[in-house]
């Protein structure tokens, strides 16, 4: 009965959804933002530790909050993939990931991307079949961008 759903809820997602990585509040975090999806009540806070180097290298990413398996897994994967990335690389990865969620890979030229990181995010690409779930997958990333930009709150509405 659930073959189609297995495409969406791959094992990696169920695992990260149940056991999110970097689910903590680092006291040394330099940036944070609150993300809110009022449609489903999901709320999360993304914490970034951003270096003072010219490229603004992100040395740590963490989050806390309450969300569905998709948004929790997306946040969890994000915390793993962004560690050590510069601001520009983080933004580029999200641009590619965003297109992937909408089924629009290659639609725009966002510049070179960490292919291995993008590959790991492919487990979330099943959301393209379920338009209402795209926001679940992208909320943590929008929140991360808001934190980088110094905005404290973001909502998907």
């Amino acid at each position, binding site marked *: *009965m*659930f073959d*189609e*759903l297995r495409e*969406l*809820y791959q094992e990696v997602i*169920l695992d990260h*959804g*149940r056991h999110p990585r970097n689910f903590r509040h680092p006291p040394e975090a330099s940036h944070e933002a609150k993300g809110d999806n*009022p*449609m*489903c*009540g*999901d*709320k999360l806070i993304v914490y970034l530790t951003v270096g003072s180097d010219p490229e603004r290298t992100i040395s740590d990413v963490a989050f806390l909050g*309450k*969300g*569905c*398996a*998709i948004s*929790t897994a997306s946040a969890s994967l994000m915390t793993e993939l962004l560690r050590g990335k510069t601001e520009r690389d983080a933004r580029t990865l999200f641009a590619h990931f965003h297109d992937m969620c909408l089924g629009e890979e290659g639609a725009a030229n966002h510049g070179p991307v960490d292919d291995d990181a993008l590959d790991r995010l492919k487990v979330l690409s099943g959301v393209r079949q*379920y338009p209402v*779930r795209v926001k*679940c997958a992208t909320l943590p990333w929008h929140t991360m961008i808001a934190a980088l930009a110094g905005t404290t709150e973001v909502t998907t509405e």
Partner: protein
Amino acid sequence: MPDLPRPDSTARPYDADRIRADFPILARRVHKRPGHPGKPLVYLDSAASAQKPKQVIAAMTRLMEEDYSNVHRGIHFLSQRSTDAFEAARRRIAQFINASSDDEIVLTRSATEALNLVAHSYGRAFFERDDEVIVSVMEHHANIVPWQLLQTDIGIALKVVPVDDDGVFDMDAYKALFGPRTRLVALTHCSNVLGTVTPAKQIVDVAHGHGVPVLFDGSQAVVHQPVDVRELDVDFYAFTGHKLYGPTAIGVLYGRKSLLDRMPPYQGGGDMIASVSFGGTRFREPPHRFEAGTPPIIEAVGLAAALDYIDGLGRSAIATHEHDLLIKATQSLAQIEGLRVIGTAPGKGPILSFVVDGIHPHDLGMVVDQAGVAVRVGQHCAEPLIDRFGVGATTRASFGLYNTVADVDALVDAVAAAKEFFG
């Protein structure tokens, strides 16, 4: 408009299968794709919007095919036919809630508009800074935000009645909220999340004891129980058509005539004026004063047909049937480990919100949907209440007159399957 034929059911036992045959959409299958026959639709989202019987569809089609034109403004044949049908619908609605007069029935686009009408017209005319409106924590956003707009614009204050952990309305707290600046009580008659039915008569009696009028948001209540505005002695009663098996884009505001008479217009336009000149415009009497522009003519006729349909089945018979389904669903779901029902007030309506340990409602809803079961997940336009119960979101199954024990079984099986899926 001639009276619509009513199904003769008073003598017969409640036959949900026969009733289902009146709802064409219930015969469809969902999630069909090549090689897969799909799943029969199990519709448990009537509290969001109910499906429509063919009697409603036929009444609207007939009006459009035979009698349709604009109302109140033509001398031609169809204009009179359409006006007659529209005003007959208003009469039917007045009768449904036992209003004293058709003039107490304002037809709006939604319950939300009805509530905004009271806030905008009554509130702006009669409220002053530091006046107070009593609401409850279980209001739909439609009965919170219009008052908050007055909070911003006029400086009124909202006083909020709490509920206990079962979702029971706190009558003592309610009584204690009254003060010299209380100007209006605006409460739900039945919570769209908890199913809690508020003690309407007692609420009105207390408020009137303080000389304060009462408005009920009856969008859920009017669907599941007989409502008699005269017996309740309520001052305003708002509800919507689409949850009552009628069409979308029609709402109803009942207003006590003595109050409507004192209220200024809500919107300006055609149909609400007695005469217009640049020297000054005179407005029509209620209810027309509050119905600017071409009204929802087809929708009103559809709603009247829906009320005929409901009364044909019998409102008490429907209530009994829905209550039986609620009890069965509550008992069956309780067998699922880690499942907790939110809203356990005695005498509640057939609305069943729940959470399951370790499964977010959004994920649960996806799996349940794949099984063909339509439920609502999220905050149900009642964020303060969801916060009150500290759950973030819930899954809500709601039962209507066409649901069956088989629907309940399908829900329980689907939730059990979701538990297995997310293990």
